C-alpha cells in the first residue's frame, strides 16, 4: 500500500441552504474536505445526502451559502464548470448512457480532455485520430484497473446492476478527477461485490491520490474506509468527525435510532 498524506482543505462548504419550493432540503450546512482524504456523508433516508452532492457539483444551486474549491469561493456551481475543475461523480440511481457500449460510456468521461474540434473529427485524420487513440489508451487503463475488460463492447443496458455501478465509476475515473463524488456506490450489492467496490475506492484513493466524497448506508463500510464522516439528518448537520468520534455521538445515535426531536 502506498502512502497517502492528507493535505489542506480543497473544498469548503459554508452555510449552505437549499429548498425546493417550500420544502427545505438542506439547512445551514458547513463542512470541508481535505486533499487526498476519503470523506463520507451519512444519514438516514431523506437526510439530504444526495442533495449535498448535487450542490457540490452544481446540479442544484443553493439559495444560500458559498462553496470554496481550491481557494476560489463561488455561490453555486454549474455542472460543466465543476467537471472542468476536476470534480467527477457517480449517481445513486445509475446514470449511464444506456444506448451506448461500456467503452463509449467510459470514453465520454474523457470529453473534457478533447482538444480537437468537430471538423477534425469528421475527417478522422492526424491530430483527431491520434487524440482519439490516446484517449482510448487512457480509457483502457481505467478499464483494466476496474477489471471490466470482458464487457467492453457490451451495451450498458444489458449489464447486471453491480457491473453498471462499476462502469459508472470507470466513466468518472476516465476524467482523471481530483475530487470524486460517489453516491452510494455499493447500494444494492452483495457482500462480494461490495468488497470489490471497497477495494476499488481505496485503490483509487491511494494510487491516484484522488480525494473522495462518499455517501454510503452501510455503516461498516463507512467506518472502514473513510477518514472523516459528516452526518446529516433532516437536512441539518448533526455530526462531523472521525468515524470513532461520530460513532460515539449521542445526536447521531438518536438520529439512527429514530428518537424524536
Amino acid at each position, binding site marked *: 500500500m502506498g502512502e497517502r498524506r492528507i493535505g489542506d482543505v480543497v473544498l469548503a462548504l459554508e452555510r449552505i441552504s437549499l429548498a425546493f419550493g417550500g420544502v427545505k432540503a438542506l439547512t445551514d450546512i458547513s463542512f470541508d474536505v481535505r486533499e487526498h482524504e476519503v470523506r463520507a456523508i451519512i444519514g438516514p433516508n431523506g437526510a439530504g445526502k444526495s442533495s449535498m452532492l448535487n450542490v457540490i*457539483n452544481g*446540479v442544484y444551486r443553493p439559495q444560500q451559502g458559498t462553496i470554496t474549491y481550491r481557494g476560489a469561493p463561488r455561490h453555486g456551481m*454549474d*455542472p*460543466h464548470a*465543476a*467537471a*472542468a475543475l476536476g470534480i*467527477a*461523480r457517480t*449517481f445513486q440511481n445509475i*446514470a*449511464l*448512457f*444506456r*444506448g*451506448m457500449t461500456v467503452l*463509449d460510456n467510459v*470514453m*465520454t*468521461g*474523457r*470529453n*473534457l480532455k*478533447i482538444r480537437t474540434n*468537430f471538423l477534425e*473529427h*469528421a*475527417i*478522422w485524420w492526424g491530430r*483527431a*485520430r491520434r487524440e*482519439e*487513440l490516446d*484517449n*482510448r*489508451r487512457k480509457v*483502457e487503463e481505467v478499464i483494466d484497473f476496474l477489471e471490466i475488460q470482458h464487457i467492453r463492447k457490451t451495451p450498458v443496458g444489458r449489464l447486471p446492476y453491480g457491473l453498471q455501478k462499476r462502469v459508472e465509476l470507470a*466513466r*468518472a475515473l476516465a*476524467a482523471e478527477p481530483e475530487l470524486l463524488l460517489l453516491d452510494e456506490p455499493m447500494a444494492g450489492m452483495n457482500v462480494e461485490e461490495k468488497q470489490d467496490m471497497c477495494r476499488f475506492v481505496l485503490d483509487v484513493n491511494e494510487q491516484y491520490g484522488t480525494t473522495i466524497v462518499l455517501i454510503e448506508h452501510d455503516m461498516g463500510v463507512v467506518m472502514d474506509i473513510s477518514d472523516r464522516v459528516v452526518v446529516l439528518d433532516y437536512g441539518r448537520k448533526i455530526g462531523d468527525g472521525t468515524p470513532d468520534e461520530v460513532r460515539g455521538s449521542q445526536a447521531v445515535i438518536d438520529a439512527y435510532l429514530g428518537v424524536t426531536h
Partner: protein
Amino acid sequence: MLYREAGQFKATYAADQQIFPIRQDRIVMIALVVFMFAVVPAVADQYWLSAVLIPVLIFALATIGLNILTGYAGQLSLGTAAFMAVGAFAAYNLDLRVPGIPLPVVLALAGVFAAGVGAVFGLPSLRIKGFYLAVATLAAQFFIVWALVKFSWFSNDSSSGVITAQKMHLFGKVLDTPAQKYLITLAVVVLLALAAKNLMRSSTGRAFMAVRDMDVAAAVIGIPLMRTKLLAFAISSFYCGVAGALYAYAYLGTVEPEGFTLDLSFRILFMVIIGGMGSILGSFLGAAFIVLVPIGLNVSTQWLNGVLQSMLHWSLPGSLTSNLELMVFGGLIIFFLAVEPHGLARLWQIGKEKLRLWPFPH
C-alpha cells in the same frame, strides 16, 4: 462460413476503432462503393438514375442529417424540409450573386447557411424537450417557408417565387446528363456519409449520444449541453442544407418554397425511424424504403390492372387504386414499426448475426 471474424485479432486500438472492424464488411463496402461509382452509371438507364437513385441518395443525406439530430442527439425535429429549403435557396443565390463560384463551394456554403439557421431554431432545445420541442420546430418549418415566399429577393424577384437551379459546373465541365448528376450526388453523399460516420464515432458523437441518453449526467461529466445541442442542430441542418441544394440542382431543377412542406419533413422522419435511429447505414435503408415502396405499390397496382384488363376486360377505378396504395403504405409503416421498431438497420444486424453462425442454427 464466409462471414466469420474468427482469426481477425485486433493488435492495435487503431485497428479496433475502424469503421468496419470485420474484414468481410470492409470488402463488401468497398466493392459496393466501387460498384456504385463505376458500374451503375454505365448500366442503369435514365429512369433509374434520375428518378430513383438520385432521390434516394439525396433523401439519404437529409436522413443522415435528421438522424444526427434525432437518432444520435435525441432532439426531435419536424423542420427538416425547411432546412433543406434554406440550403436550396442559399445555393441558388450564391450561384446567382457570386460570379464564378465553384460548385463544391456553393454546396458547402449552402450547408453552412442552413447550419446557421438550424442553430438559431435549435435555441429552444436548451429549455424544451420531447414533443414540445418537436412542435416548436414546426415554427421553423412554417416560418422559413413563409419568409422564402414573402421576400422575393430570395427568388431573385421571380413573379412566381419559383427558383430555377443554374447549371452545375465542375472544373469547367457542365454536369447535365443524369449520369453526371448521379455521380456528383453520389460523391457528395458518400463523402458526407463518411464524415458523419467519423463524427459519430468520435467524441462529438459520444457527446451527442450522452445528451440523448441522459442530459444531466452528460453535463456532470463535463459535456456542455448548450454547445452540444446547438452543434447537433447545426451539423444536422448542414446535412439537410446540402441535401436541399442537391434536391434543387441535381434532382428537380426547379424548386418552389411550397415544395418543402411539412409532409416532406415527416417523410424524412419516417426514413429515420424505418431505417433505424442512430444508424448511418439505416439512413440509406430508410430512404430507399420510403422512396421505393410507393413506387413499388404503384407499379404493382398498375400491373394488377394490366392483368385484370387482359383477363376480364375490367380494371380497378383510378381513385380506388390510389387510395388503396395510400392505405397499404400507411399500414405497412404501422406493421413495420410493430415488427421491428428499431428499423432496418437492426434487421441488418440480426441478419449478420445469423450469417455469422451459418450454417449452424445457434
